[in-house]
């Protein structure tokens, strides 16, 4: 008889727990959907306000354009095919600048980790170069590499490399010294120390610099295009500004926002993929 009571108790407990869990999940879902709804409404409201302001003449459409014009412009450019070359040039430059910047920055971090002497020697140079507004170097890059693709990528690298180096080197140095002591006590070489402990322990930091570098690369590329380009989204913005076509400027901005977000999300996805295995 007693066992029947116990089973009943277990069943009722299980039901109660399930019910509680279900309530919790529903509450969470309700909150999430509320956030999404308000988010979407806010976006629609801002565009509606912009459109209304433009139509009612509160703002000068020559300067601020209007959502209708911007979207019509984007659509025309997309379907007409005139946007694609610009878009692919800019995205190409950004991806190359991003990958090279991260790679070179990490490599430089490895080199100065390897040689504490070199690290001490280079330290003030890195500080100076890091605090410098790299955009000011633009003209020099143009003179050195010609007004084109290379100068733009170099401008991007000048922005991304040093900060990557600093962040990654810092994470190398902040690895728990006791983990290093463990491998050293087995007689590990410096290569082994790096491969087995320093690098894997710094992986999260390296991946999070990827996220920073996506944004940095966009800054570098757009500024580079402002300075030299004959094509690309940065060029479109400058061109639109010069001929006073602000619909073109706004359209380019909107496209940059969309593509940059997509790239950022891609990096976040890669980060999750890499870090989920630990």
């Amino acid at each position, binding site marked *: 008889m007693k066992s029947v009571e116990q089973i009943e108790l277990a069943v009722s407990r299980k039901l109660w727990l399930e019910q509680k869990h279900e309530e919790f999940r529903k509450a969470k879902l309700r909150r999430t959907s509320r956030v999404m709804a308000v988010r979407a409404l806010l976006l629609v409201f801002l565009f509606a306000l912009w459109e209304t302001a433009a139509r009612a003449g509160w703002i000068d459409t020559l300067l601020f354009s209007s959502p209708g014009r911007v979207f019509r412009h984007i659509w025309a450019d997309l379907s007409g095919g005139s946007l694609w070359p610009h878009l692919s040039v800019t995205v190409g430059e950004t991806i190359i600048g991003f990958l090279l910047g991260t790679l070179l920055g990490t490599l430089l971090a490895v080199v100065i980790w390897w040689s504490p002497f070199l690290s001490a020697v280079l330290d003030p140079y890195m500080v100076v170069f890091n605090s410098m507004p790299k955009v000011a170097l633009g003209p020099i890059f143009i003179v050195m590499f010609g007004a084109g693709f290379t100068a733009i990528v170099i401008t991007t690298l000048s922005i991304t490399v040093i900060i990557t180096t600093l962040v990654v080197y810092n994470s190398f140095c902040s690895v728990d010294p006791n*983990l290093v002591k463990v491998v050293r006590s087995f007689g590990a070489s410096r290569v082994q120390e790096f491969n087995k402990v320093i690098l894997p322990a710094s992986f999260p930091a390296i991946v999070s610099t990827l996220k920073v570098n996506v944004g940095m690369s966009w800054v570098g590329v757009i500024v580079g295009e402002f300075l030299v380009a004959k094509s690309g989204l940065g060029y479109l913005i400058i061109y639109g500004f010069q001929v006073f076509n602000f619909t073109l400027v706004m359209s380019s901005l909107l496209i940059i926002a969309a593509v940059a977000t997509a790239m950022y999300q891609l990096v976040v996805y890669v980060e999750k993929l890499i870090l989920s295995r630990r």
Partner: protein
Amino acid sequence: MLPLVQLKGVTHAYLGDREAMLAIEDLHLTVDKGEFVSLVGPSGCGKTTLLSIISGLLQPSRGEVYVGGHPVSEPSAEIGYMLQQDYLLPWRTILNNALLGLELTGSLNDETRRHTLSLLKELGLEGKEEAFPSELSGGMRQRVALVRTLATGPKLLLLDEPFSALDYQIKLQLEDLVAETLLRRGTTAILVTHDLAEAIAVSSRVILLQPNPGRVRRIFTVPEAIRSAPPLYARDLPGFAELFHTVWKEMEIAGREE
């Protein structure tokens, strides 16, 4: 028989920007094969420094260290080192953590792998091979660290307060396990601890160091009855409390003299 560990006139100074500080001066010590020796003493007497020197992680400023007849110049898998905490690599599974030493010394093969698996089993970690360190309790993790150290088959084991970060109950259990495991394998061990009762319960000799600078003050030999009893029961044996008080008093004096 040649002692396994020989320290001859070991002196070590820490060099800083402001001053050079003498941590250990003219220290002589021998440990025989199969012995379990404890180093105790007030803080600042150079216990951990001494352990680092024996392991080869630290080069003494003066003097010589021999393990198994060879001078120690760098760390090797012959000398196992266990730290205060487990320091398992969080991105590796338990098995891969346990295999770390074998990987680093290039001696990972089917046989050593099987041996490591059996060690894990021996220390009650069967079924946890594929788990990650974060999924294990502190006591289990420290046992994995012990397997990691034993897997390379060290002749000498250096234990740097390996039980100090654990709950009291787990600490007692682990003391038992470690003492028993080492005894069975005939591994020589040097334990650094601040817990006198632990030192007396697990070891055959207790070496009391004095600070400023660190040197051997007195060596106590633990009676056979206490030595051969499991650490948990050794604490209740007659003679244990007396020895504890003798060592305690001597340590008090050593600490006050500085």
